[in-house]
C-alpha cells in the first residue's frame, strides 16, 4: 500500500484547493473594489452618443482688468470713510491688508496710493476724535457722520483724479474683451470679402498695423509677402484685407487712449473661411 498515495495526495489536493479559494477570493474582492470604484453598469440606460465637436472660440481673459481694480479701490475708500472712526486705532489691520496686497506686484503702485490716502484719513480722525472722547457716543457718531458727508464729495473728486492718472503699465492692463470686440467690429464693417474665391479656406491674411493715438492707421503691411508673389488668390484676399484697414471709413479705431501702448502695434488676421463656409 502506498502511503504517499494515502497521506500526501490528499494533503496536496487540500493545499491546491485552498490556493484556488485564495485566487477566487482575490478575484471576487477585486471585482467588488472595481464595482465600488466605477459603479454598477446600467444596461438599460441609453448609450450616450458622441456629439460632433462644436467649434469654440477660445478667448483669453486677462488676469487683471482695469475695471474691477478701480471699483475695488473705490469700495475700499468708501469702506474706510464709513468706518474711519473705528479704524483710527487699527493701524495694524491696515498693515496686514497691505501685506496681502503687496504680494501682488502688479498692484503695488495702486496700494501705495491707497495706503497714503488711508493714512491721511487716520490722521484726520485722530485729530477730530480727541475732543469727542469726553462727549457721548451718540453725539460723536453724529459729528462723525457730518464730517463724513462733508469729506465724501472732496474725496470722490480726488479718487476720480487719481483714477485718470493710472497708467496701464502701473495697473498691468490689457485690452478687455469688449474693447477687442469693438476693434473687430470696427474693421469687419470695412472688409469686403472676396466671395467665391478659390481655396477660401486657406486665405487667412495677417496684416501688421501701426496706429497713432487717435486710432488712425499710420502704417499697414501684409506679412506674407512671399505668398503674394506666387499665389494670385491669396494676393486678392490680402489686398482686400489691406483695403479694409486703409479704408477711410475705418479711421479712428475705438480704443482707449490710456492703453495706447497695448494697441499701437496690432496684427489683424483676416480669415474669410467662416464667412464663405468652406
Amino acid at each position, binding site marked *: 500500500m502506498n502511503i504517499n498515495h494515502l497521506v500526501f495526495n490528499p494533503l496536496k489536493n487540500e493545499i491546491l484547493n485552498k490556493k484556488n479559494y485564495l485566487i477566487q477570493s482575490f478575484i471576487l474582492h477585486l471585482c467588488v473594489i472595481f464595482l465600488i470604484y466605477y459603479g454598477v453598469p446600467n444596461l438599460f440606460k441609453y448609450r450616450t452618443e458622441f456629439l460632433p465637436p462644436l467649434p469654440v472660440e477660445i478667448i483669453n481673459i486677462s488676469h487683471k482688468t482695469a475695471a474691477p481694480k478701480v471699483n475695488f479701490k473705490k469700495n475700499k475708500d468708501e469702506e474706510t470713510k464709513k468706518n474711519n472712526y473705528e479704524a483710527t486705532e487699527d493701524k495694524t489691520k491696515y498693515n496686514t491688508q497691505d501685506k496681502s496686497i503687496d504680494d501682488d506686484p502688479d498692484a503695488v503702485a495702486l496700494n501705495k496710493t491707497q495706503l497714503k490716502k488711508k493714512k491721511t484719513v487716520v490722521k484726520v480722525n485722530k485729530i477730530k476724535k480727541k475732543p469727542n472722547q469726553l462727549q457721548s457716543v451718540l453725539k460723536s457718531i453724529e459729528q462723525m457722520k457730518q464730517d463724513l458727508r462733508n469729506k465724501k464729495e472732496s474725496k470722490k473728486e480726488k479718487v476720480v483724479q487719481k483714477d485718470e492718472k493710472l497708467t496701464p503699465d502701473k495697473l498691468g492692463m490689457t485690452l478687455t474683451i469688449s474693447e477687442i470686440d469693438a476693434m473687430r467690429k470696427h474693421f469687419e464693417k470695412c472688409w469686403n*470679402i472676396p466671395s467665391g474665391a478659390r481655396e477660401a479656406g486657406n486665405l487667412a491674411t495677417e496684416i501688421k498695423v501701426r496706429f497713432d493715438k487717435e486710432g488712425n492707421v499710420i502704417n499697414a503691411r501684409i506679412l506674407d509677402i512671399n505668398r503674394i508673389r506666387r499665389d494670385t488668390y491669396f494676393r486678392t484676399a490680402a489686398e482686400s*484685407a489691406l483695403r479694409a484697414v486703409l479704408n477711410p471709413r475705418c479711421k479712428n479705431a475705438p480704443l482707449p487712449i490710456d492703453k495706447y501702448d497695448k494697441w499701437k502695434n*496690432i496684427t489683424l488676421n483676416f480669415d474669410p473661411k467662416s464667412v464663405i463656409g468652406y
Partner: protein
Amino acid sequence: MFYKLKRILIIFVFLSFVSQTKAELKIDITSGYSEPTPIGISEFISTSPEEKMVSKQVSNLIKDDLERSGLFRVIDPKAYIQKISTINIQPRFSDWKIINAQALIVGQSNIQSNGDIRIEFRLWDVFAEQQMAGWAFNTTRSNWRQISHRIADKIYERLTGEIGYFDTRIAYVAESGPPKQRIKRLAIMDQDGANHRFLTNGKNLVLTPRFSPSQQELTYLSFINRIPRVYLLDIETGRQEIVGDFPGMTFAPRFSPLGDEVIMTLADKGNSDIYTLNLKTNISKQLTKYPGIDTSPSYSPNSKQIVFNSDRGGSPQLYVMSSNGKNIKRISFGKGNYSTPVWSPRGDYIAFTKFHKGTFYVGVMTAKGKGERVIAKGFLVEGPTWTPNGRMIAYTKKDYPKEKKEGKTKIYLIDLTGFNDRQINTPLEASDPAWSPLLQ
C-alpha cells in the same frame, strides 16, 4: 566654453524675440460684408472726335462687363472730383477716397496712322495708393469689342485673382410659343448679349447644347424625325451630323476636356448606360454596365474621372468613376434626388440639380461629396453650367405660374457662394445654358 556661451547667447536672443512677438496683440477678423467693390472708371483720354467715340465705346463696355460680373459697382462719373488729363501721373488719391472708389481705371485711346486703335490703361489701388497694373493693346478698329473684353478680363484678373471670362460666348435653347406647341431653337451670343443669332430653325426640338473645347462645335440632343439623338454642329458653317451609329436613343452629351471624344448616354431596351465615342476613329466604348439608368456624365478637367447620375442606389444619386468606368463611388448622400452633375473647370466643385419635396435646388459639392451647399432654389431651377473660371454658375430658372399662366423661363447667373444672383438678358425665353471655354 566659448561654444557653450555662444549657444546660451543664441537661445537668449531667440527667447527674447519670442517673448516680444508674443506680447503683440493679434485680433481675428472673421466676418465682413460681400458687396460689389466700388470702382471708378475715368473717361478715357482722347483728342479727335473719332478717338472720343472709341474711348466712350471701350470704357462703356468695360464698365458693363465688370458690373455684370456682380463683383464691381462703377461709381457714377458725375461724382468724380478729379478729371484725369494724363494717365502717366498718379491720380489724386484723396479725391477718389472721398467717393469711396477702391480701385480706379484710367486710360487713353489713340488712332494710329494705319487706322488701328491703341488703348492704354492703368489700374490703381486707391487705398494703398499704388499702381496695380498697366497695359497697352493694339487692334483693328472693327475689333474694339473684343479688345474691350480683354481689357475687362485683365482688370477682373488683377482684382479677383481669377481668369477673366468676358471674351466668351453662351449657347442656349431659345424658347417661344405656347406650352403645347413650344418652339425650341439653338442660339448663341456673346456673354454680354451681343452678336446674338439662332443656330437651328426650330423645326425639331433641341436640348442640352454643350461647347467643344475649341469653341467651334456644339454637341446637343435633337429630336429629328422624333427620335432623340446626339448631334454635332459646326457653329461657323452650320453643318450638323449625327454622333455615332447606335441602335437606341442617345442623349446627355458632353465633350471630353481634350475635345476628341463625346461622352453620352445610350438607352436601349429600357437600359441606359454611359458610352464614349472617339470622334476621330468613330470607336465607341461602354463605361457602365448596370440594368438601370446611368446618365448625365461629365468629365473632370484633368480627364481622369467622370461624375454621373445613377439610380443604382434606389434613387437618382451622383457617382464618380475613373475614366475607364472602374472605381465607382457614390458622392451624394443628402435628401432628395440628384441630377445633371457638372464638374467645375477649376476641378474643385461639382454643380448639380436636386429635387426634394416639390422644390428644385441648384447646389455645389466637392468632388468627394463633401461640403454640399445649395446656392439657388425655386419652382424650377436646373441645368447648371460653369463660367470658364469656375467662379460662377449659370442655370435655368422658371418662375412660379401666375393666374393659370405658365411662368417664364430665363437664364440666371450666380456666384459660387450664392451671392449676386441676376438674370442674363436674352431676346426670347431661354433655358439650358452652356458657357463656352476661354477663346484662345
